[in-house]
């Protein structure tokens, strides 16, 4: 029975190549847009190189000082001291790393300027992240303690600064703003979209110009807290919250009129959302806008499919009439159309998969995002299959239902 329906569907598809094309075009393009978008979101928020432990990491990235009525506020990253006192001392996590947000610098080689992003980290940074070392090794506690002028650079910077094919660069010096740093490691770079681990060059936080001695609360450092496993996250958050709760009023004031301090250890996505929407009403607004846009972008092709299907199925009224006259129940006809639609959506889905694969490969190799590693992973594929089914049902059930209720006489007459 099932095979039969599919055979019929296949014949119908071949009978009207133009309509088949319209339907497939709609399905595959909608799904492609969706898949590319999902894979981009996954690239932004998912667990990927070099933050391979992001699923069990918490980010402490913003300190917000405000007054009780929230008329004035001051937000930004924290100071090194603040994070050492309240984050580094946490008992529950496996490791805590403190790192600076990236800042800019320039270096000059042979009259050419190289723009640089610099980052200061502690030695735990290399355990919390899993950077791949192409050469050399990371700096350790000893380097940090002694304030060595050492640096870890990315392969991209190595290729720009040092002559190619000159052998290893470990042990060579790189000059930045009149200070020579000894290169001790070369890592595979991180894409710029991973804002906390991305940089061209990494220094121990005791290197010059890192400002780690700054006092107060607001500085340029963030912390990544690595849990032993995912289930520990709530425990870490509550431990951190209770630590923050002990901060005295005078500390919060920080010389200004602030009375409220908001610092949270959050998962990456929550943290990201919070930087855009400060309170719940803003969050609801953001979600509504996103939902509306998504509804439009998915609803339009769906309506279109329903429309096309309605006219296609109406065209087949005589076929249905004959089947009904020979005693096929409405239910069987309904199933036939549903299966037919799911079948065509899956064909569209296969096209979409191939197309997305192509586009994603293009994005990855275009250099539009350096080190981009967009992938179609299993979850993205699963979502798209699910969407396939929804589309198939939405665009199939309505016309099929209408058709299956058609009177035999009318159907045969047409």
């Amino acid at each position, binding site marked *: 029975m099932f095979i039969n329906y599919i055979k019929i569907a296949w014949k119908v598809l071949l009978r009207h190549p133009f309509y088949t094309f319209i339907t497939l075009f709609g399905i595959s393009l909608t799904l492609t847009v969706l898949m590319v978008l999902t894979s981009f979101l996954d690239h932004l928020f998912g667990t990927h190189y070099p933050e391979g432990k992001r699923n069990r990491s918490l980010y402490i990235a913003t300190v917000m000082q405000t007054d009780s009525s929230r008329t004035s506020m001051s937000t930004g990253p924290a100071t090194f001291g603040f994070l050492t006192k309240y984050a580094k001392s946490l008992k529950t996590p496996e490791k805590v790393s403190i790192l600076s947000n990236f*800042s800019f610098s320039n270096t000059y080689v042979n009259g050419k300027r190289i723009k640089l992003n610099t980052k200061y980290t502690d030695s735990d940074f290399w355990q919390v992240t899993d950077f791949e070392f192409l050469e050399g090794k990371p700096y350790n506690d000893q380097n940090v303690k002694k304030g060595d002028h050492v640096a870890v650079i990315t392969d991209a910077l190595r290729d720009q600064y040092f002559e190619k094919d000159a052998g290893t660069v470990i042990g060579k010096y790189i000059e930045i703003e009149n200070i020579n740093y000894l290169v001790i490691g070369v890592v595979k770079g991180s894409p710029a979209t991973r804002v906390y681990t991305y940089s061209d060059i990494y220094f121990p936080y005791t290197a010059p110009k890192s400002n780690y001695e700054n006092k107060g609360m607001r500085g340029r450092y963030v912390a990544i807290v690595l849990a032993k496993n995912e289930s520990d996250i709530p425990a870490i958050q509550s431990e951190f919250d209770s630590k923050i709760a002990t901060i005295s009023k005078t500390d919060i004031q920080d010389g200004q009129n602030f009375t409220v301090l908001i610092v949270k250890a959050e998962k990456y996505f929550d943290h990201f959302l919070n930087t855009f929407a400060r309170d719940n009403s803003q969050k609801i607004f953001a979600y509504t806008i996103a939902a509306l846009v998504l509804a439009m972008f998915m609803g339009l092709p769906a309506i279109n499919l329903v429309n096309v299907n309605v006219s296609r199925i109406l065209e087949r009224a005589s076929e249905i009439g004959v089947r009904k006259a020979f005693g096929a129940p409405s239910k069987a006809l309904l199933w036939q159309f549903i299966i037919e639609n799911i079948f065509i959506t899956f064909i569209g889905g296969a096209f979409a998969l191939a197309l997305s694969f192509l586009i994603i490969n293009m994005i990855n190799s275009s250099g539009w995002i350096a080190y981009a590693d967009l992938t179609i992973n299993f979850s993205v594929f699963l979502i798209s299959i699910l969407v396939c089914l929804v589309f198939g049902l939405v665009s199939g059930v309505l016309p099929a239902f209408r058709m299956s209720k058609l009177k035999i006489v009318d159907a045969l007459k047409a």
Partner: protein
Amino acid sequence: MLRHLFKLIWNKKGSHSLLIIEIWASFMVLFGVLSLIVYNLNNYLQPIGFEYEQVWNLDLANNQDTVEVAAKLQRVLQQVRASKEVESATRMSSNTPFSANQMGNAVTYNKVNVGADFYHSDSELIKTLGLSMLTGKWYTEADRVSKFTPVVINNKMKEKLFLNENPIGKVVVQDGKNYFKVVGVVDKFKAKGEFMADNPALFQMMAKDDGWNSNILIKTKPGTDANFEAELVKNIALMLPGWGIEVSYLKESRENRHKLTLVPVLIFLIVSGFLLTNVALGLFGILNLGIARRRNEIGLRRAMGATEGKVTIQFLGEIWVLATLSLIIGLLFAIQFPIMNVFDIASGIYITAILAAIVIIFLIVTLCAWYPSRQASRIHPALALHEE
């Protein structure tokens, strides 16, 4: 004729409702995307108001050094100005052109309160950025003797704050405690690039002992290259050990800013382009089938003496009526945007977007209906009636 068409459509409202929804949804998507494009295009067409080609931005960070910061900055400025490759140089707050930084404040004059972008600079900014003066003059060292901090405003600010009054010499107040005296009006200043709206701006003369604003804009002579830059950075690094030094070219920063605006627009454009192609193909298919099913009706009309043109017009007219119905529903939604001034965008932009969306929708439905209608009109009456 028109009433007749409406009657025809109304009689089949059930089967047409989905078509109407589809055209309505396309209109809404088009309206959204076009608003975005018209807004950006409208901004882009207005001049940026300053020169950036030869200008570098020297970003200094004093880091742990907190001793005599202002004096050190002043010395760097003098050193920069002394170089033969430099035409002029000025200190500026961190919200330099094309940077991500913004500084907003509100000032009051005669109970009118206007929010503006605040820029701190010294007397050389006008030369470095090539701003064009409308009235008055740029502040100079001589203006320091005045009791109030001298400021220059842009034309947009003047329009909002002073309406038709002459602003020169007027005193405005910020937060009820900082008093500024307006000494000049410049034309436009779109610091975030061509795609930024022409916002009110206020330039405030930097205090002599200001150690907070540590950016220096440098206008270099033509032909200056990275060698001078390396030398400059080296010299400053020697003068200011422990300071962070970063040089960027405004020309490059501008391109980055542009990308930030253009990439989302491009993505929306591509996605909505696909959606509309999708809709157009779907419409074409539906109309094709729908018209093909009305062969006998067409045959009859032709037999009664209707010309090919009249038959074509009838089918086009039907789809136009359908489109008009959908657009009326769409307008009910879209018109809220200019009325309620959503996102603080001028209503003219929304109205242009609405008109453009209407034109495009009519174009699409006409294109989609044209071929099937022509085909239908060519049906030979004898053949069509014979089939019956």
